[in-house]
Structures are given as C-alpha cells and as structure tokens.
C-alpha cells in the first residue's frame, strides 16, 4: 500500500486567548490518495473551511492558530516547514480555489497576466511560452475564444467564467492537490453544473487529487469518492461515498440526509432535526450532536465517542450505533 498524498493527523485549530481558547477544529484526521477525490461536508461552524485553510497554513493568525497535529504532504509535515517555504508549496504542489472568484482576482490585471503570474512563480518559461501556456489553460477550462479573452479584465467575465479562470490559475503548474472551498456556492445551478463537470474533467485529465469542501450533500454525492462529515469542529463520520449515502452510521448524517428536500420526493412533510447548530467551540465534553440526537444515552454527555469502524472503509463517532452494529455482527457470527 502506498502512502497517501495528504494525511491530516489530529489537527486542531483554536481562536481567541490561549488561556481560554475556542477550538474550531478539534482532533481532525483524514487522508487523500494521489488522484483521489474527497468531499468534506458540514454546516456553518463545522470547521470544514478552517481545516482546508490549515493545509496551506492560511488560518488567520492572530486571532487563530493551529494548536496541534500534523499535515503530511507526500510524507513531509507542512506544519513543520519554515514559513518562508510555504509559497513554494502553494500553487506548485497544492492549489486552492474559493467561493467568490471576484475577490480572489486582481481587478486591474488582465486575466492573461494573472494566470501568467501563477506560472512565472513556479516555472521557467519566457513570455511567449507563458502566453501560449495561458491560452492552453483557458482552452482547458472551456473559456470560449481564448485568444480574444486573454487580455480582458475580471469584471468583463460572468461569475461562472471567473470561476473557470480561477481553476485555470489553480491548475497552471499541475498541482497534485486542488482544494476547492465551496467553489460553486455563489453560482446559479446551471452554471454550477458546468463548473462541477469541469473539476471532474481536470481530475481525469491531469490526475489532480481534489479536496472539495461543501455544505451541499448533492454536490458531494455527485463529485467525490470519499466523504468526511464534520460537525462542530469534529469528524463524525467518514467513508466511501456509497456507504455514507446508503448506510449512514452517525445519527447526524442520517438526520441530515432525511431532512434535505429532494426532487423525486413524494413526502408531504420533511423530517426535521430539532434545535440548531452549536456555536463553534461551545461543546467541550461528550458528543457534540447529543442535544439534537434522537438516540442519545447518558454516556453521550460524558464521553466523546471515538471513530468506530463500521466497515472496511467506513467509520463513525457514535456510541449508540456502534454498539448496535457490534451486537448485530455478533448475532450474525453465532449460529
């Protein structure tokens, strides 16, 4: 078995005073294989974005800080690297795209110059070669008439086209990992479909591993092989996409899947999860979902559940469902 491309181990991120910190990412671990696609799904305050920002050490410091854990990229701990080496990693090995492409683009630079700059930082090409490469990239991400658009400015592009430009910039140096944080949340649904198809295409053609952060279970089901479900800063379930959507093991994942409206759904009434998402860092003891959980028992208030195995590549952090699964397999084992 080969080592994963990226392995996050026991990552914690805290905000506020060290004496009384708010822990927004709490002991998070997962990994991505080379060329793989992993989706991190969660609601507000789940810590999904802070986890992804930690990989490139983009957590705003202060008030935030990475307070524990390791992030191994190709075996090397990114958190142990000297700070001045991070720019070499960003863009060349790991690239990132964000929700709002307009705020990530320079409004007074042509998109050709911006993509060219990304190339210039990591590759030794002269300006004619760079321009040729930019045209190739614009073609790759499906910008119509690349030669006519290369000297245009960001405001001359629509939201969907800007996100294509961001993707072109991100893949300019053939990174091995592309982190996409809510890449389609600001886009209309027909444009979202185009961008998701493009990300799949990039992964297939260039072999780029993709870490997709989203609140939308539909997007995750559509685009990812593995899924990490986060709640209140913690990983509550992790597995291959089929296990997560067919046999969810954590009560939160189950409730979330039941509560979302579906197009093919004939129910008159939606299942509703009581209460609201806890504030980041407000749960310090026991299971973070217990206040809203229909299955909670006394243990849940006291002991934080570890991730229990529910299958060869499926884990969930729930005392109750883990015990039930164990009892079931014990019953199946005895005649």
């Amino acid at each position: 078995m080969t080592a994963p491309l990226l392995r996050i181990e026991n990552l914690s991120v805290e905000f506020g005073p060290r004496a009384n910190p708010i822990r927004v990412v709490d002991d998070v671990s997962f990994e991505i294989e080379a060329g793989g696609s992993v989706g991190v799904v969660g609601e507000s305050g789940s810590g999904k974005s802070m986890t992804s920002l930690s990989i490139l050490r983009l957590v705003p410091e202060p008030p935030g800080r990475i307070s524990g854990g390791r992030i191994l990229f190709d075996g090397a701990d990114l958190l142990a690297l000297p700070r001045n080496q991070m720019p070499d990693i960003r863009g060349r090995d790991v690239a990132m795209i964000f929700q709002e492409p307009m705020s990530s683009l320079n409004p007074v630079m042509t998109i050709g110059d911006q993509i060219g700059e990304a190339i210039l930082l990591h590759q030794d090409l002269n300006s004619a070669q760079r321009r040729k490469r930019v045209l190739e990239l614009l073609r790759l991400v499906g910008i119509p008439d690349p030669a006519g658009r290369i000297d245009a400015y960001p405001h001359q592009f629509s939201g969907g086209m800007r996100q294509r430009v961001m993707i072109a910039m991100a893949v300019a140096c053939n990174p091995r990992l592309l982190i996409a944080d809510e890449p389609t949340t600001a886009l209309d649904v027909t444009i979202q479909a185009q961008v998701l198809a493009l990300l799949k295409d990039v992964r297939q053609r260039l072999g780029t591993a993709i870490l997709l952060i989203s609140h939308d279970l539909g997007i995750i089901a559509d685009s990812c092989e593995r899924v990490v479900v986060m709640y209140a800063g913690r990983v509550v379930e992790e597995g291959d996409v089929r296990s997560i959507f067919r046999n969810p093991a954590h009560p939160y994942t189950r409730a979330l899947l039941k509560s979302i409206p579906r197009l093919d759904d004939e129910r008159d009434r939606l299942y509703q999860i009581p209460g609201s998402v806890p504030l980041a860092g407000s749960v310090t003891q026991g299971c973070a979902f217990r206040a809203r959980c229909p299955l909670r028992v006394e243990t849940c208030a006291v002991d934080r559940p570890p991730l229990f195995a529910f299958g060869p590549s499926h884990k969930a952090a729930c005392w109750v469902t883990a015990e039930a699964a164990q009892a079931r397999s014990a019953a199946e084992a005895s005649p």
Partner: protein
Amino acid sequence: MNAQASTRPAPVAEPLIRAEGLSKVFSSKTGLGFGGKRADVRAVDTVSLEVARGETLAVVGESGCGKSTLGRLMLRLIEPSAGKVLYDGEDLTQLSPRGMRAMRRHVQMIFQDPYGSLSPRRSVADIIAEPMGVFGIGSSARERREMVADLLTQVGLPPRYMDRYPRQFSGGQRQRIGIARAIALGPSFIVADEPVSALDVSVQAQVINLMQDLQQKRGLSYLFIAHDLAVVRHIADRVAVMYLGRIVEMGPKDAIYRTPHHPYTQALLSAAPEPDPDRPSRRIILQGDVPSPTNMPSGCAFSSRCPLAQDICRQERPPLRDELPGHQVACHFARPNPIPV
C-alpha cells in the same frame, strides 16, 4: 390541491390575488457624462399569474430572472411600469398611499436574510408589536405583549425570549421571528423571498414545515420565491419557472416535476445535484451564460442556450400558452421532457 380551480379560462372561484401583465423596466445610463446611452432592463416582462386562497405558488429561477422583483411588485414595494395587481378584486397599483397602508394588513413579506430585515437595536417584542400598534390591534401595550407571546409560541419560540435582541438568536430562530412579524397582523397573502436559502441545511426543514403548518392553520396564500427546485417541491401547489423576466412554464407541481415541457425547466431540474451517488448522471449541461438583460436575444430569451433552438426561436417570441389544462408553456417546441437524455 386547488390547482384545477385556479386554471384558465374563467376560474370558478375568484383567486385571492392576481397579477395581470405586470412589468418592471429599470433604466440605467451607460457611459459617462451627457453622451451616455440609456439601457433599459425589463426585469419583469408582462407576467400574469394568480394565487388562490390557501394555495402556494412557487416562483423558481436563477439570479437575474426577475423573481424577487416580481415578489416586490406583487406587494407594491416597488412601482410597476405596467400592469395591475388585483387583491380580492381591488387594484393595488391604483391605491392611494393611505389605502396602500391599510392594505399592508392583508399582504406581507418574509425576507431571505432575517438578519438584515430585523432592526438590531430593538427587542423581539418591539419588532413584532410595532405594526400592531400602527393598526390599532390590541388595546394596550400589555395586551400586545400577550399577543406577541402567543405569536412566538405559534412559530416555535419560547415566549420568554421576547425581550431579547435579534443578535442573540441563531439564523433559524431569526427567520422564525421574521415569520412571526409577517403573520402578526393576520394577513392572507405572504410573499416569501428565498426564506430558507440563508439557513443551515439542518434548519431549513424546520422553517419549511413551520410555514406549511401556519398555512394550514390560517389559510394563508404564499408566493414562495426560490432558486432551488428541490426546496419548493414540498411546499408548492403550483410552480412558475422564470427566465430573464418572463414565465416560461407554469403548472401544477407534479406536472412540472414529472413532465416538464420547457427545455429550460428540464435543464434546471437535471442540473440540481441530488444526494444520491447511484443516481445515473443524466445531467443536461447548458452551454454558455445567462444573457445580459440589457442585451436580450431576439425571439425566445432562452434560444441562445437552448439545445433545441431552431431559426424560429431566434425570430419569434413564443407566447405562454396552455399545453394542458392549467399547464402553460412558452416554447415553440413544447412537449413532455423535450430534451432526450
């Protein structure tokens, strides 16, 4: 439910509210100084629709399609450029300012962002009781506080929270406060503009279910504006799909979801990612962007992206006409599930 009763021609029962040929043109100047050209945007273009008592009509479309402008026109929060809005037979667009104020008792709005629409400096009790005072509901402040307590209970919030401020509530709770304010005067018709799209996924179902409960208890009519077809599936009786200011398809919910007749409706339905990894990918991916409303394609507004477009589509604008009873489509090639997948 009442879909049959509200179809054309000549509905048996008069609808509660009806828009006839409603249009809104926004003018803006492009370029600098006196030489600038005027660019007109037809945000809403001759839209006619009706909502029966106790019915929910969902208006669905992407950004810039004019759905929010339509919602505001229905309540005369903005003035229409043409057309009328008849509430119980009375034309809202002709009412005097005083007449319109009195009308506000009957027609109300729920906004997308409960944060932006609730004053941060006022307690929940003040926010909800203010319109009651204006309309002389409740004889004293004390009686109004009791009514606020009752309203909070109806929207699922503990009455003891009434002296708190909006910032002390979660997003879902704030939307409940917005709903309590909207129903405080006992309206019959509510425009809800993307009421759940700013909420966490796990909280959306609570608010949708609450709106349905209140509708049943109070016989409310909703115009429910959304960009998400999955969300409205649960609450709509009928659905209107908008594209660039026009309704391109309107009909009973089941007809829209099972046998969409307009290629845009079908693309919209197929583009929504479903939380099911085994669903075969039958996605229709439209090419290109939504055209700029200042530079509309001639003929059918959808023709520049439509996989079925022929010459006639670029020349002649298709009228919205009945394909089936109560099911209207604006397409030269309207037929069930037009794009083969």
